[in-house]
């Protein structure tokens, strides 16, 4: 198959509704209730009735058959469903699969959804099996894996913990502008705050790690011809690609190069745009090292140079690169699988710039004239990488 065949999905589908639910703390709510609430709110946002939904895509850390459980809960009988579980990036791959199913005419309206009550239910939640050849050493997964990558990165490129801390500082600065962010009221972080936080797995401390919150999210997708008739501004899927090279951190071919190199290359190629065309950059920042790796692997700078790129708050609100503008997994929300929140922020920035009311931000929190966003999802232990490129109608 040549690239033209693959690229036929470009612009064929759009997100026409989105919502989040129960972000932060949602004591007394189940993961399913949080997820289903987000679906209903996203359908209201789209102006599409539940009975029109015929494609259901979901993954959680609470349901082994999430798409089936969600369909039943909603009372939907899907003609196509996908509950692929590739970690936190699952939803960005569901979006690709939904686009394929919509384009093929198998379905007309897809919902992609996620829900978690991990924080109120007692802490980080995973349904991952123990990894053979690793489990007996008792790694503190996933933190140990990301610490191993960070240590190697620091060694290969002369990076320091201060370089990692710059990522957390900028993420917090964005969160201070976003009333939805869990740390919105917490005040700014300094590099020293990050360095002196409780060590978890060296070289990563507590503030190098994402939040642990509750939360759910959903998006509604249709074919682009239908999208024109919905309530709010459609945001078009211009590119999508995925790749993964390992499941266990001990099998990662190179600890400082992720398969985002491949997913990013193909997603940008499908979209017809380049990294520097992106108005906003939304990266799966479960740990500070992620942002450095993905800025490099997606092509925003050369390998080893992200530590320079993130200096002087250059990825913060006053910087040149608008990275993780909601505050990210580090400072906005992280219910265990963050992928759909990366997507939500990429879409919200574009909808706000198109005149939709998608909530309030403090001055500088919304990116003026945003037309293109990259949403990048990570899953497992730097394992699964999925890249989506979103654009407003002018970019089609």
């Amino acid at each position, binding site marked *: 198959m040549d690239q033209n065949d693959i690229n036929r999905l470009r612009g064929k589908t759009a997100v026409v509704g989105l919502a989040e639910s129960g972000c932060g703390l949602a004591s007394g709510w189940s993961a399913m209730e949080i997820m289903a609430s987000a679906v209903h709110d996203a359908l209201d946002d789209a102006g599409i009735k539940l009975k029109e939904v015929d494609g259901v895509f979901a993954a959680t850390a609470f349901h082994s058959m999430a798409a089936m459980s969600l369909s039943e809960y909603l009372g939907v009988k899907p003609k196509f469903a996908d509950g692929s579980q590739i970690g936190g990036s699952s939803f960005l791959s569901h979006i690709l699969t939904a686009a394929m199913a919509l384009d093929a005419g198998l379905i007309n309206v897809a919902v992609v959804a996620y829900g978690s009550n991990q924080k109120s239910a007692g802490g980080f939640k995973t349904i991952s099996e123990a990894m*053979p*050849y*690793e489990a*007996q*050493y*008792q*790694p*503190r997964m996933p933190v*140990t894996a990301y*610490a*191993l*990558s960070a*240590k*190697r990165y620091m*060694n290969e490129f002369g990076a320091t913990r201060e370089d990692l801390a710059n990522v957390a500082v900028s993420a917090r600065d964005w969160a201070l502008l976003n009333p939805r962010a869990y740390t919105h009221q917490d005040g700014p972080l300094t590099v020293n705050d990050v360095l002196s936080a*409780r*060590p*978890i*797995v*060296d*070289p990563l401390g507590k503030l190098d790690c994402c939040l642990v919150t509750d939360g759910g999210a959903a998006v509604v997708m249709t074919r682009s011809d239908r999208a024109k008739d919905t309530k709010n501004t459609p945001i078009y899927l211009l590119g999508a690609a995925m790749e993964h090279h390992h499941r*266990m*951190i*001990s*099998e990662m071919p190179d*600890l400082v190069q992720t398969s985002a190199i491949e997913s990013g290359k193909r997603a940008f190629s499908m979209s017809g745009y380049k990294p520097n065309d992106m108005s906003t950059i939304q990266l799966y920042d479960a740990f500070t090292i992620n942002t450095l790796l993905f800025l490099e692997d997606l092509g925003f700078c050369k390998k080893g140079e992200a530590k320079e790129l993130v200096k002087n708050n250059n990825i913060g609100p006053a910087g040149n690169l608008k990275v993780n503008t909601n505050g990210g997994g580090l400072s906005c929300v992280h219910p265990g699988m963050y992928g759909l929140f990366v997507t939500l922020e990429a879409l919200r920035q574009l909808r706000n710039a198109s005149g939709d009311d998608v909530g309030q931000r403090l001055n500088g929190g919304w990116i003026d004239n945003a037309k293109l966003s990259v949403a990048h999802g990570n899953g497992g232990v730097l394992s699964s990488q999925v890249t989506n490129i979103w654009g407003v109608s002018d970019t089609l």
Partner: protein
Amino acid sequence: MAENLAGTVGPEQQFKNFLSEGKFMIQRCKSLNKFFFHPRVAFPGSGERDLEWVEASGNGEVYSSSCNRRLPEKGGDFNLSLITLEEGPRMMARVEGIDPDKVEIGQKVKARISSLNGEPAVIFDIV
């Protein structure tokens, strides 16, 4: 042929059995003359099945390292590293006999078979 597996054990159990006998064995593909880890039924990526077990030299080098913080009453901090074996493959293991936060990339290490939670385990010492 693997249609009938009765009466045999797979590579994972074979690896564990070797460890129980005090041997750190890794697999080699004969036609490719390449070692790999972890144990599998075929060479990863190309599928060759002419495999043999070879005793590892035990020589390796720290590829990356982490210090996992843990409360003293739960056993205290411990090291967790990725080791590149002299034969080529990489594996997860602990480096012991040194402060867990003092293990550095590039250090030469040597394997020994110890036990973790009652199971035999490959552990490395700084050479």
